[in-house]
């Protein structure tokens, strides 16, 4: 079921903004409050300048928080960010299950 093309992201064909959000949030989450921008750039495979814009946006959206550690910004995922990730992966799962078997869609309506 897994193949090389799909390896990086569930069902990814082209990385949408939400896919990029999820990629960055997943990397930040691994650092437990101490994610530096360079570390995140290596993890997410994204240049620092582009990542900085994305991270600023995630902070404005309340999905990441930033605080200074040793005079440098360190990022952490917020509860809202975690909620985004949970919803994102669940939705990707639903989409993939529907795409995998379009004829097997199940109605939950009682007959």
């Amino acid at each position, binding site marked *: 079921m897994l193949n090389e093309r799909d390896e990086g992201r*569930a069902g990814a064909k082209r990385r949408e903004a939400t896919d990029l959000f999820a990629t960055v949030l997943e990397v930040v989450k691994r650092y437990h409050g101490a994610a530096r921008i360079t570390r995140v750039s290596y993890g997410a495979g994204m240049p620092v300048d582009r990542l900085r814009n994305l991270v600023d946006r995630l902070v404005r959206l309340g999905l990441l928080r930033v605080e200074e550690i040793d005079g440098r910004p360190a990022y952490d995922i917020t509860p809202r960010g975690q909620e985004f990730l949970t919803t994102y992966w669940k939705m990707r799962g639903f989409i993939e299950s529907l795409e995998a078997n379009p004829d097997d869609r199940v109605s939950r309506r009682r*007959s």
Partner: protein
Amino acid sequence: MAETRIPRGSQVRLGVVDGDLRADQHVRIQGDPKVTVKGDVRFDGSAVVTGGLECRRFRADDGTVEIAGDLIVEEDLEGRDCTLEVAGALKARRVDVDRSLSVKGPAEAEKFEVGGVLEGSQTLTARSVSVGGKFRLAGQLTADSVEAGGSAELGDVAIESLSVGGAIRMGGGQVRGSIEVGGRFLTERPLQFGSLDVGGLAEFREDGRGGSVDIGGILSANKDLAFDDLEIGGLGRIQGNGTGRNVEIGGKFDVQGSLTLTGRLEVGGAVVIGEALQAESLEIGGKLEARRAVIASAAEIGGQVNTREGLKADRIRLERKSRAYGPLVGGTVDLNRGSRVEDVYGERISLEEKVEARRVFGANVRMREGAHAEEVTYTGTLELAAGATVSRPPQKVASLPAFPL
């Protein structure tokens, strides 16, 4: 402590260095046959060591450092904006590399923290492994906690907990605690696990055995799967047998063998079981198909149940307008308004308004207005409301025929 400096672009041959060693960028150090540094080693840029290297502490900044042999670090190994390639074994107390680390031999440390990519060709042993991007390991992974933000490709594992943001493909082995995967999970060999939580797709190519399983998208098991509680939001398929406690299916679930549960089966969507279903209780809002279903206590059907050999339960209740194909065998059988069934066997059978049944065999049978049966055979009482009809005259007998199942 004395410091030996190697200037930029130079090539030196070293054996034992009594103090610290500091190398500028683009240096080439030849080991004799290895370099033993009593103090710390620091690389200020790219470097090649054509042999093994042993030191107290190791630091590399801004570049790629290649070690052609083993790298043994007594204390910590640190790489800032650095790629480290070790052709032999790696041993250190803590390993912290920004960009990428590749080790061809066995790797061992208390902690591995890598920002980008961690690759190992043999085994890796650690207390914790944290990788921001990709983690690839060909040999056995032994660790307490393993985290990767992007993806992981692992061989066999013996670990406590595993968390991967994107996708993981692994051999098999044991994860004693939790496995959490955002996107995709695939295991190629038998796996034991504490719990499994996958947002997207999960695939077991061999037997799987574990605790709770929660799959947001698709579950696919090519062999048997044993679990405590199984919850699938999308699609599930087990090609062997499924055994566990409780199952809750929102989408579609297909078991080619038998499904044996000590608890509840709750189906909002559709469940198809090739062989037998056994459970403590059953609740169907959608559709259930099985060769036979034996339920210890209550079976509530709001949708449709299809069995070849029958559905048996202590209490069977069909909600309004639900359908049952195949015999229903119960202690108590309540068929609510508008439901349609085939043969029904039970101690107490109640057909509410507009229920249609084929043959009814019961000790005590009650039929409400508009209910219809082709045949009714009973041993105790038969209550027929006005407007209830039976195609053939009801038969009171001394004993009922043997119930199926």
